[in-house]
């Protein structure tokens, strides 16, 4: 393989991983922006999303097979279901904690994370689940560089979802209210905005994006495991911090950047792919030292 081939192949790999990270990071950053909570359960919603998508796909595969139509259907349904789950978690676990000291809500988030991952572990007996699809292994072959149609479709769907989110947040009144709550909650109340409703909406959107990424990951890796949310949760957090936590374009940028850096990091001599995680968390530490507000983040005095 020539250097150009390696660069192109890693670019493709990086973009795929990056769009997963970006989609999970978006939920992290939106929730942080609006109620200043690092939602540790967010990675687990990604995992639950994958399993719910898998369940729905199994249920409808007799009708639609395991084609793209069936996968898109299960992804959309999984997004709705996990979106609702996110709203319920917010209502039951987080809302009563909003007036409590910051640490209490963080611990609550950890507890929710454990409930979700252990719950799924019990249901699945801790086994890997094969996420079968009949998408095949066709793709675009450029000699030494190969990009499957599945990979291409994943990147495209992730981009479409992110463009929709971007338009929603910038062009609709509800999206603007979401941004406004992140700036000043009391002022929003004085505009007649039902703040609790907008917070619930934020959780819905963030959780459903995580679910979409979970289903995509199932399709991409071909298997699911209850622990799959943990590392991606940390990675998405890293991505959100890189982009500047609280910033929506920042999460997209941070996710893609992290995916690309990881992909290329594995090409550095003596750093193989087994050092991938060390590479990204090392990056997080460096960033926290050098530019803690991230690329697009604003300076903030109080942090948790």
């Amino acid at each position, binding site marked *: 393989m020539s250097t150009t081939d390696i660069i192109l192949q890693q670019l493709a790999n990086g973009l795929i991983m990056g769009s997963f990270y970006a989609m999970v990071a978006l939920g992290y950053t939106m929730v942080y922006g609006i109620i200043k909570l690092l939602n540790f359960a967010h990675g687990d919603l990604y995992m639950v999303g994958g399993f719910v998508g898998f369940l729905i796909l199994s249920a409808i595969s007799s009708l639609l097979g395991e084609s793209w139509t069936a996968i898109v259907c299960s992804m959309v349904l999984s997004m709705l279901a996990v979106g609702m789950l996110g709203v319920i978690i917010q209502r039951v676990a987080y809302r009563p904690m909003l007036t409590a000291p910051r640490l209490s809500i963080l611990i609550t988030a950890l507890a929710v994370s454990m409930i979700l991952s252990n719950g799924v572990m019990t249901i699945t007996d801790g086994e890997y689940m094969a996420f079968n699809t009949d998408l095949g292994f066709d793709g675009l072959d450029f000699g030494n560089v190969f990009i499957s149609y599945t990979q291409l479709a994943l990147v495209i769907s992730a981009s479409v979802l992110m463009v929709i989110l971007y338009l929603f947040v910038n062009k609709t009144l509800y999206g*603007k209210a979401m941004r*406004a709550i992140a700036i000043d909650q009391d002022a929003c*109340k*004085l*505009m*007649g905005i039902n703040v609790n409703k907008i917070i619930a909406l934020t959780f819905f959107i963030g959780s459903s994006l995580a679910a979409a990424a979970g289903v995509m990951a199932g399709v991409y890796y071909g298997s699911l495991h209850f622990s799959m949310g943990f590392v991606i949760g940390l990675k998405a957090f890293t991505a959100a911090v890189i982009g500047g936590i609280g910033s929506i374009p920042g999460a997209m940028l941070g996710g893609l950047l992290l995916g690309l850096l990881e992909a290329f990091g594995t090409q550095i001599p003596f750093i193989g792919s087994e050092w991938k995680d060390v590479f990204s968390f090392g990056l997080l530490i460096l960033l926290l030292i050098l530019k803690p507000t991230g690329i697009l983040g604003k300076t903030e005095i109080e942090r948790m």
Partner: protein
Amino acid sequence: MTNSNIILELQNVETYYGKIHALRNISCTVNKGEIVTLLGANGAGKSTTLRTISALNRATAGKITFMGEDITSKQPHEIVNMGLIHVPEGRRIFKGMTIEENLELGSFTLRDDVERKRRMDHVFEIFPVLHERRSRDSAMLSGGEQQMLAMGRAMMTKPELLLLDEPSMGLAPFLVKEIMRIIVRLNKEGVTILLVEQNARVALQLASHGYVLETGKIVIKGDAETLRQDESIVKAYLGE
């Protein structure tokens, strides 16, 4: 004073900030079409009174009535929907969002885009400077312009009653005049105004009557003329 004319009434309202007894037994009334002012030194409870009316703080006792309806236990957004808008101290505009976006959020509860456009044009007519900068980040505005934006944003809800908390704070004298001129204009358009001010001389020129607060209690009430002419009041409570 006929009852039907009263738009806002506070009866024996008490408010606590944690353990601090911030408002003690506050009773006051605002009639429809009036400009009423709340005066007092820093920390006297003026802002807390407004925050209690708009439900950002909760009254622990007493009753608040707006247009004949008890609003004491309503949520802030419900009160806004009834036509009572609070423009808080420090303007609290959405910095990082454009002037247009700020105004749109003012009409959040409105579903009619034609009406939204009409209200925005009206706000731009009152504050031409906002029109010039409509797509600029509101953080770039000067203090006076931010105050105009905060008032314009409140006007987007088509309020019956506007609570204004120190609109003249930190502004140069010519801007204070401009803001006061606008308050009078809004009042002539039919908006009732409850004005909190430290600049008592200015406030008493506009208001029909006023209340003076001291450590969370109303210590003096009367029509503006009387308050203005009572030198001891001016010296003791209103400053120079």
